[in-house]
């Protein structure tokens, strides 16, 4: 079974190469734009116009009660964002979470995908399906599930909580330094399964001859996994790592709602996205909110370009 990503890799981004007369080329261009037009409209409305408008907004000055006028404000809003007392903290929080979450996530993805690949037949595919199930509980549903697990009052792991001296959900999430671990558990539970499927798809694309050759050389299961399978699926591992890295910068729902169930014991703006949200909806400082989203946009755009050009999954000749 191959993945779409693999198909892309093998077919690359080649332009069809047959030469055709000029007249039919121009009709081809016209046809292409006609077919692209619905997507182009949505791309404008859902991507390009908002980014352009955010740039414009970020360069305005925010209206204040004393001076309700808006107008060109230069980089004032970026200064507001950079000098906000929460700005550096929010990125530190994301990094603290990533440092714990990303290694665990990657080891989990690769380890479980290798285990599944080493288990051919029904057992392997059944396990792959089971690992995928929590991924279906995306976003808010996963959150409510975790409220159920984290609240010692009715948690199935109540005994565990009491053993470490936690009696309320507030203690469970708001103890100093605890939040990155709680978020790691939540995001691992929700995210690992679908990535196992992706990496497993990469493993399934390895031709059998390679395993036969390794077996002739006397490789055991460990050596096979470590020296043969891992190097071959490196592009998928890199892809998963970068996608999850970018995902870390959009953290919003979990810290925002954990604060709500923990009697506001957490910082209100714990992640950069929460800070941008607060600029827009608590301070009504749209220029600062736009500046904040542009900063995050640049970071995730950088990661996105790395994925497209460097992961090796989307056609090498574009790099």
């Amino acid at each position, binding site marked *: 079974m191959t993945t779409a990503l693999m198909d892309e890799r093998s077919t690359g981004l080649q332009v069809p190469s047959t030469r055709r007369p000029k007249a039919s080329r121009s009709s081809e261009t016209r046809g292409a734009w006609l077919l692209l037009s619905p*997507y182009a409209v949505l*791309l404008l409305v859902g991507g390009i116009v908002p980014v352009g408008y955010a740039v414009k907004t970020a360069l305005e000055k925010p209206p204040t009660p004393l001076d309700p006028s808006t107008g060109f404000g230069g980089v004032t809003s970026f200064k507001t964002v950079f000098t906000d007392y929460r700005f550096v903290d929010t990125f530190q929080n994301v990094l603290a979470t990533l440092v714990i979450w990303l290694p665990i996530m990657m080891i989990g993805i690769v380890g479980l995908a290798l285990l599944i690949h080493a288990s051919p037949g029904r057992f392997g595919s059944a*396990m792959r399906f089971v690992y995928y199930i929590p991924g279906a509980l995306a976003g808010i*549903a996963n959150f*409510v599930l975790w409220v159920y697990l984290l609240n010692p009052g009715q948690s199935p792991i109540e005994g565990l909580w009491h053993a470490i001296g936690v009696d309320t959900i507030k203690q469970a999430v708001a103890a100093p330094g605890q939040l990155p671990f709680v978020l790691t558990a939540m995001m691992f539970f929700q995210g690992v399964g679908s*990535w196992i499927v992706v990496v497993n798809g990469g493993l399934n694309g390895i031709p059998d001859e390679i395993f036969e050759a390794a077996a002739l050389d006397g490789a055991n299961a460990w050596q096979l996994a470590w020296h043969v399978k891992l190097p071959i699926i490196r592009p998928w591992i890199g892809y998963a790592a970068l996608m999850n890295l970018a995902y870390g910068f959009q953290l919003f729902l979990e810290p925002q709602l954990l604060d709500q169930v923990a009697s506001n014991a957490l910082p209100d703006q714990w992640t950069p996205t929460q800070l941008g*949200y607060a600029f827009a909806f608590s301070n009504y400082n749209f220029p600062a909110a736009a500046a904040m989203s542009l900063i995050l946009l640049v970071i995730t755009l950088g990661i996105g370009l790395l994925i497209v050009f460097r992961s090796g999954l989307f056609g090498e000749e574009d790099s």
Partner: protein
Amino acid sequence: MIENWSAGRLARVVSMLFVAAIFLVPIAGFVAMAFRSNDGVEAGSGGFLGLGDIAWSNVRYSWSQVNGFGPEGGLFTRWLTNSLIVAGGGAILAVVAALPAGYAMARLRFRARRAVLLITLVTMVMPNTVLVIPLFLEVNAVGAVGQLWPVALIMGFFPFGVYLSYIHYLTTMPKELVEAARLDGLGEVSVFWWIGLRISKQVVVLVAFFAFVANWTNFFLPLALLSSNQQNQTVSIGLQQLIGASPLFNPTVAAGLDVKLYMPQLALATFISMLPLLAVFLGAQRFLIRGETVGAVKG
């Protein structure tokens, strides 16, 4: 099954089953919670995961509480309807836009082709939340905050669907077929319409499925665009309101409400909110098995 169970094999199977249990036990307990009673949960009765506490009468009581929420009640049903409108509308738009675009990028030559493909790939791999505040500013500028249609329209922008369609036409529609159709005198759009669409059932289902799931579970976009209008919220942000109205987490707010939302009610509301996803999954299942592309939709 007469095979020798080496130590390594035993370790592999045991660790895989252990991880499976870590995933399944909380979910089983959570689903059971939706069928339990407040008294039973309070008393910790029902044994393992509270399975002994399950009863249909509990569901009927919990539903009366969940759907009793709101000034006149019925808000939860309203949220479900709104979610269906925006997630379904967005998925339809995504299919309508993705198929011709994917076909054009796969089989037609034009100057901006590489640029469009690059933009599609990059927007596909970026987390979509980074655009939410700019999108809010855009929708706010046209005065449409709190309305459903901008949300559905924005959800229609689904680059992953374009990418899926692109791959689909690259792999299923040979160049020679397009050439032959042109020689028969068909225009570019007609080739897509009469030939491309005929072989598109698989990709229509895939794009619609992934778009619907992504839209249904989207939290940040509806939160920014619809929070101001309680009647127009989706179920994802509605669940947040239910949590905020629970006496477990916010006794002061909960004291002023007619309905009582404890863990069984919250679990039931979540469980019901997942049923449409289960339905589309079952409907799309036999198409999903053929292409293992699930993970790329993350982020």
